């Protein structure tokens, strides 16, 4: 088994039998999967199935209690150094943006590079401005998050994560809190990111995006991966009853 895994382009994320409990509530019941460098995976599944919890364990916002998570050759344990290494390699984008309201958009982006990566202020600002350019809101750099729209905030949040030069980007329902007309501007940025070769794990209900961009779709239910397949197979030829039900329900909307 191990030999086979090594033979593949070494997976950048490896999860083996990951379990997670909230008190007595078993949320993740043994997740085993791996993601290749440059892979774009979409995670979907019904509400409460543990999608958020799973991707949050990947940068230690939640602690898993059993099993192994290895990211870019570093195992996620109680080792503080590993946690810090992994957090630098893994960027995260939240449903509620979670921008820092007391900092300007630019400062939101430069905070990490200055304090963690120890760049100088001007270096960090240069990086930040070019990232803002990339997400198409360079003109909003000196405004505060409360002064821009939700779609723009989410793009700042993506730029903030990218400023740490992560190898992996996690997205937890990045468009769920947005008005319909703003969803596409965020998805455009994500699409561009996908084409640039970033490894991406995206929890989303945007099935169009999944079909177009994803290399693989993982379907979560009750803390387990029920089905994983390339989007074409997943949507057109689902294997499991629950997957079929889920797809028919989501596509109705």
């Amino acid at each position, binding site marked *: *088994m191990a030999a086979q895994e090594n033979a593949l382009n070494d997976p950048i994320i490896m999860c083996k039998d990951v379990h997670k409990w909230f008190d007595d509530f078993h949320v993740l019941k043994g997740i085993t999967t791996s993601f290749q460098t440059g892979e774009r995976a979409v995670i979907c599944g019904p509400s409460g199935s543990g999608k958020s919890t799973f991707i949050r364990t990947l940068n230690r916002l939640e602690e898993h209690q059993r*099993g*192994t998570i*290895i990211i870019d050759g570093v*195992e996620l*344990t*109680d*080792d*503080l150094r590993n*946690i810090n290494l992994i957090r630098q390699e893994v960027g995260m984008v939240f449903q509620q943006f979670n921008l820092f309201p007391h900092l300007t958009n630019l400062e939101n982006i430069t905070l990490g590079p200055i304090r963690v990566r120890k760049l100088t202020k001007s270096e960090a600002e240069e990086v930040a401005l070019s990232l803002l350019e990339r997400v198409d809101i360079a003109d909003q750099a000196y405004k505060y998050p409360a002064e821009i729209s939700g779609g723009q905030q989410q793009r700042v949040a993506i730029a903030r994560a990218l400023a740490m030069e992560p190898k992996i980007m996690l997205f937890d329902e990045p468009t769920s809190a947005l008005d319909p007309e703003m969803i596409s501007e965020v998805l455009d940025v994500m699409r561009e990111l996908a084409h640039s070769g970033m490894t991406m794990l995206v929890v989303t209900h945007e099935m169009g995006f999944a079909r177009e961009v994803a290399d693989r779709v993982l379907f979560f239910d009750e803390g387990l991966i029920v089905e994983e397949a390339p989007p074409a197979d997943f949507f057109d030829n689902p294997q499991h009853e629950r997957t079929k039900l889920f797809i028919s329900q989501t596509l109705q909307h």
Partner: protein
Amino acid sequence: MENNSPKVEPGKIPFWRDVRVLRVLFQGIFLLGVILLLAILYRNMLEGLRGLGLTLNLNFFQDEAGFGISEGITYDPSDTYLKAFWVGVLNTLKVSIIGIVCATFIGLFFGIARLSSNWLIRTIAAAYVECFRNVPLLLQIVFWYTAVVAQLPNVRESLSLFGGAFINNRGVYLPSPEPTSSLKIWLWFLGAGLLLAVFLYVLRWRQLQRLDRPGFRAKWALPAFLIVALCGWFLTPGRPFTLDLPALQGFNYQGGMSFSPEFSALLVGLSIYTSAFIAEVVRSGIQSVVKGQREAARSVGLKEGQTLRLVVLPQAVPIIVPPLTSQYLNLAKNSSLAVAIGFPDLLGIGRTMMLQTGQSIPVFAIIMVSYLVMSLTTSAAMNWYNRRITRIGR
């Protein structure tokens, strides 16, 4: 697959990087620091006490106090220090409880007045609140004591209210109800009334259930009880209570209830000061509900009185109770300002004990424990109530 996972054993992580170890370590260091600090203080204390020629000793609580206390439960200077302290505790409780009752009524009055539709009433209430809460309580107490109570006429020229109550610079004298021998007979009546009331209550409850309507369950029980009690009062030979009127005897009034000038000044100061805060609590509590809810209730077709009883109050009360309790606690703690005018509360008596015995540390400890017991029990009750009430959700 399951077992050959490359799980790193916890022991392999260097301890200074292991989050779990760090957590324990950090807490350990913190506790060590605290203990060290306490130890240093303890050592200093021993040294300091030696410097003053004192030793720590708790036996003195059983010694004879030897000082008099101007008011409170029966106590003799030959009683123990512990008894003396107990007198102080009861005095604190007495002024606090009476103060809380008074402050609540006054505060409720002004809080509602601030919501009046009458501009003049609203303004007077606002002025009252602002005046009394923006001046230090201590100043108010001292003012009442030296500038008002002490300036009252002397005993011979006492102010008299309805011929039964007297106010002079030695205190306030009120008539008090004294039980007589026929009280027992009346108590029988009350007992019977209570039985009847319980019976009627259950009956009414059943009826309401049968009708499947909401209603006032004590609708029959309450009047019935009152009627029996009232009839009993008049049927009892002699009256169950007589009024003991204060009367001038020698140099002062005797009989009835009396309150010392210190107690009166403290009570007035505490009640008025706290009532200003309570008024604010009440006003903001009601106002926070009234805004949208009242119109909603009206639109459902409830009348003014029903709106208040069924919609506003049930929501306002849970908002009001927590800050109200903390005002009560403040009043109880503020009653310690008694020391400024010589009312023998627990702090004042504690101070006397300290001066007499030099045992300041144990006395401070017992004072702190007394106050803490008061506040912690109150806030525990408060938390319990809060948890019950917040489940309803706002």
